[in-house]
């Protein structure tokens, strides 16, 4: 590695760390819309009119002795419920992780709707550390991948790559290999390697399990 490459690696590592825990505050979109609109969010005049008309209709029906109008039955909901965050700290096992010459650090990062388990290890014979992130909770492969700018860039910033359960999204950027794998709903594994081949990187991601 040349001094220039080493400096670039240090910059990437520093900025990676700076943005690692950055998440969007709750209600950010609504706050912007409300500020830009100069009114309370999601209370459009059209909705207020509809609420007023519904109240008038209800009052008229009660006055006429017809009782409360029965609301129409809700259509069946097909969406799956959000996955609850799983306890990750101390429960993550990496089956395919080869003999580690230098163990790094482990950090549990509980959040409102997900947990992130992080480890960095240096493989024997490899100069670069292997970074493993495990996300648990209301997360999807596309969602996690889109949070990392590399995937967005690989897709030309235009779309998030889609992948089904069990599939992986992989890409290479400036010598670093990235693998994002959804092993099960609500559990996403993200592995970053440098001088490790793609097959091994994928095996490491596939070898992550939560006891």
């Amino acid at each position, binding site marked *: 590695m040349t001094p220039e490459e080493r400096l670039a690696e240090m*910059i990437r590592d520093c900025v990676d760390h700076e943005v690692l825990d*950055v998440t*969007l505050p709750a209600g*950010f979109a609504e706050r*912007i*819309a409300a500020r830009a609109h100069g009114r309370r969010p999601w209370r459009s005049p059209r909705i207020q009119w509809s609420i007023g008309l519904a109240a008038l209709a209800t009052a008229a029906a009660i006055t006429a002795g017809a009782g409360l109008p029965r609301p129409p039955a809700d259509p069946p909901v097909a969406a799956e419920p959000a996955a609850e965050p799983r306890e990750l700290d101390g429960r993550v096992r990496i089956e395919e992780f080869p003999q580690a010459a230098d163990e790094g650090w482990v950090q549990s990062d509980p959040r409102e709707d997900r947990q992130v388990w992080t480890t960095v290890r240096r493989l024997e014979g490899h100069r670069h550390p292997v970074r493993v992130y495990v996300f648990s909770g209301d997360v999807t492969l596309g969602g996690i991948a889109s949070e990392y*700018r590399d995937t*967005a860039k690989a897709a030309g910033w235009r779309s998030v790559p889609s992948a089904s359960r069990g599939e992986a999204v992989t890409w290479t950027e400036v010598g670093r290999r990235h693998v994002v794998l959804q092993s099960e709903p609500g559990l996403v594994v993200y592995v970053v390697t440098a001088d490790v081949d793609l097959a091994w990187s994928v095996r490491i991601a596939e070898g992550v399990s939560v006891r």
Partner: protein
Amino acid sequence: MDEAEADFTRFVRERGAGLLRFATALTGDRYRAEDLLQAVLERAYSRWSKISHRGDPEWYVRRSIVNAAKDGWRGDHRRNAVIARLGTEDEGVYLPFDEYVTRDAVRRALRGLSPGQRTVVVLRYWEGLSEAETAALMGVSVGTVKSQAHRAMKALRTSLELVEEPLAGHAGRRS
């Protein structure tokens, strides 16, 4: 909620976290980045129908973030001053000592760059953009990107070397 408002909200929910990371990388300050992103999105919101019909709203927003960051957008000075007193963001996070020292030195060096230089460095070395892509996003020439990157890397090398000297001198005085 009209169609544009719904589309805007969906966009921010889906892409907002990535955009906030991007703004944080460019500014080096997550709170300033949040204010910057909010200001950019508020401006975009008022023209959202037009922006989204062009077909690439994210590119537009990213470019707006870059323009704001490279010009040294500061946001609310009072808020930043208060946040600065709260301590470093690494408090409570345990890292190997050498990793922490290296990262801290690089962070300080990056903060010593001008906003334009930091923008070039982040786009080139963190985002992995080519010189041409960086120039397009910043709205400058490729030559400007080259010269900014050259000066920034030189400054970083100098700054990181300067960090090591006082440490060595300090150790010598103690022994």
